[in-house]
């Protein structure tokens, strides 16, 4: 993983400085761009392994950069956005961003997102020939072959719909999936908007079954207004 190039697009020079220090310290090669225009040129000329893209950029905003670049650039893009701009995050994910991270973020959080994005990208690159047959985190285990779920060794009985939702999220563990993405993956691309309600209610039921009662969820995390994320170690 080391030696990979990350283009950091950020107009706030102080944050850019910190990110550069942090990522360099973790053996990534860093390229920087302070506005959307430069970012586009850098992506074209250097083709970095990953882009860390701030959405609020001068000249050409992050969403526009994303839209233009996504037509040909297939490496991970992580979007950086401010708190409270959920619509913007959903839009970025729908436009093909791999993940997002909300400003301000902790160092470990950022590094975890970067690693997750690289891992998913590698899985995609290597093709579906050798997909994981199961995923486990913190006492939770999902066996894709048997279509079974275990929490602390005990099997949890889910409906088919519930299982499909969990499987989808588990296969993208660490990555946030928007409601829209989940709906389209499970019900097809022409799925009606009102299915959201069904998905949300299903999710409440899933979590009641798999999470510990009367406590914060550990496995499936809510990104309010955006979607769901399966926890990683």
């Amino acid at each position, binding site marked *: 993983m080391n030696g990979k190039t990350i283009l950091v697009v950020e107009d706030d020079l102080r944050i850019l400085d910190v990110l550069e220090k942090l990522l360099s310290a973790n053996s990534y090669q860093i390229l920087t761009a302070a506005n959307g225009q430069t970012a586009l040129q850098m992506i074209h000329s250097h083709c970095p392994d990953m882009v860390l893209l701030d959405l609020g950029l001068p000249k050409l905003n992050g969403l526009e950069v994303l839209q233009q670049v996504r037509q040909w650039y297939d490496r991970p893009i992580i979007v950086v956005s401010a708190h*409270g701009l959920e619509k913007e995050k959903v839009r970025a994910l729908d436009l093909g961003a791999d993940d997002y991270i909300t400003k301000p973020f902790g160092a470990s959080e950022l590094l975890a997102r970067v690693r997750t994005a690289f891992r998913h990208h590698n899985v995609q690159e290597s093709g579906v020939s050798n997909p994981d047959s199961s995923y486990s985190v913190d006492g939770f285990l999902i066996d894709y072959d048997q279509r079974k779920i275990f929490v602390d060794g005990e099997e949890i009985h889910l409906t088919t719909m519930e299982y499909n939702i969990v499987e989808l999220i588990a296969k993208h563990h660490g990555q946030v999936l928007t409601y829209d993405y989940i709906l389209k993956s499970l019900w097809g691309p022409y799925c009606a908007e009102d299915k959201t309600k069904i998905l*949300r*209610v299903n*999710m*409440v039921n899933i979590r009641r079954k798999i999470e510990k009662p009367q406590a*914060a*969820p550990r496995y499936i995390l*809510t990104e*309010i207004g955006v979607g769901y994320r399966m926890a990683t170690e």
Partner: protein
Amino acid sequence: MTREKRRITSLGPDGRLLSNLGADATVFIGSGIVALLANLAVGSPFLVPAFMACGPVGATVLTKSEGHGAMTAVLAAIVSVWAQGDHIRHPSLMFLLLLLAYMALVLFVGGHLRRLVDNLYEMRKKHRQEKLINDINQRILTSRANDSLELLTLESLCELTGKPGIIYRRTENGIESVCMIPRWQIVYPTEQSAAETAFATGQRCGLGTEQYSSSSYLYIPIIAQNKILAVAAIRFGVDNHPDEEMATAIDLIIRQCALAMTRKDLVDEQHKIVMQSEKEKIRNDFLRAISHDLRTPLAGIISACTTMQESREQLSAQAQTELVQDIHTEAQWLLRMVENLLSVTRVTGGADMLKKSLEPVDEIIWGAVERIRLRYPESTVMVNTPEEVLLAEMDGTLIVQVLTNLVENAIKYSDSAEPVEVSVRPDNGFALFEVLDRGKGLDKETMANLFTATTIRSHAGGNGLGIGLSICRTIVEAHGGKIAGRNRAEGGAAFSFTLPMEELS
């Protein structure tokens, strides 16, 4: 609109229809009585219908022109007497005398009747006008703030004169007609420029004045305190100048209207000032509270930083770590504070700033609990949700913030290590959220102004309760819910809020 139309047409084209009918009837009856008297004297039965028939004819003409009326009355007398064939063939002196006396009588009675009718008509007209003006005054004076004074004035003028009219006001597009009776009149360029002239000069123009005298409208500026508020245009028609009485009445209405408009402007202005100062006060209180709350952690950060910069060598590794940790904690707190403030600007920016969608309340609670777990890993939060899945329309991030604030307060201020309970249940079409702790509860002073921005509970190491709660209230109320705080009977504080809920079908 239909109301004033009906009133205007019922007056007839010149407002004299009713008085004509009255005069007719009076003269008709008068002639009848005279004819009856004559009949008694002459003894002919034909006289009665003849006179009765001639009466109205004479009367109709009488009301229009005095001379003709007299002539017709005399003619009527002669014709009706001539119809008495016998008397023509054998005229007697007695009959001729009677005829002359009768003619005189008709003229005399007719003249008097005419004057009587005229007086009656004048009196009634005056009375009606007075009543109308009174009504109009009443209406203008009692007009509510949101009534259109222009329309009211125009209605009154049209009712008084029985003529069509237009009111012009100054808008951002220049001088424009703001209301018309009847609607859909076309304003020709000359009329427009006449109205503009009235605005520019503050003088009447149009019909009967020096400027635009060929216009069929009379343009009257409505002026109060040297300010031209509007221009009323009344279409009297080219040959139809308003008489003196009408002019006085119009003046009266215009003056009343000017008064009412000024009063309305004053009331509006005053209202604005009151609102402004109220807003200012709230903002000042809020700013004062925020500044205080922001200063405390900033002071902590700055002192930690300077300590690190100036005496790093003397500090142990552990002390250094602790200082950095302090900076981190304070900065985190500041960030949450700013997030809270930002969400207030979102809520107070109007209902459409809320990004509402249907959310299961379970997820909202979990969202809040996840955030709390990140900030306070050692604390325990118990969650109680009902069997059925409750859904409510809300701006998810904001409600998570409310819950997070409440739970955070419970953890920080309760002085208790007991778990904080978060529960939700349906309550009469609302989702009722509760945050319960087992701490020392709220003292009287805190209870008194719990949700106002100025409350700051000064606790060792704690700050921001007041603003946090006032922000919670703003958010909850923007969603159409209510928030409350109380002490629990079994000890500890309880905060609850409601959100309108959708039943899951």
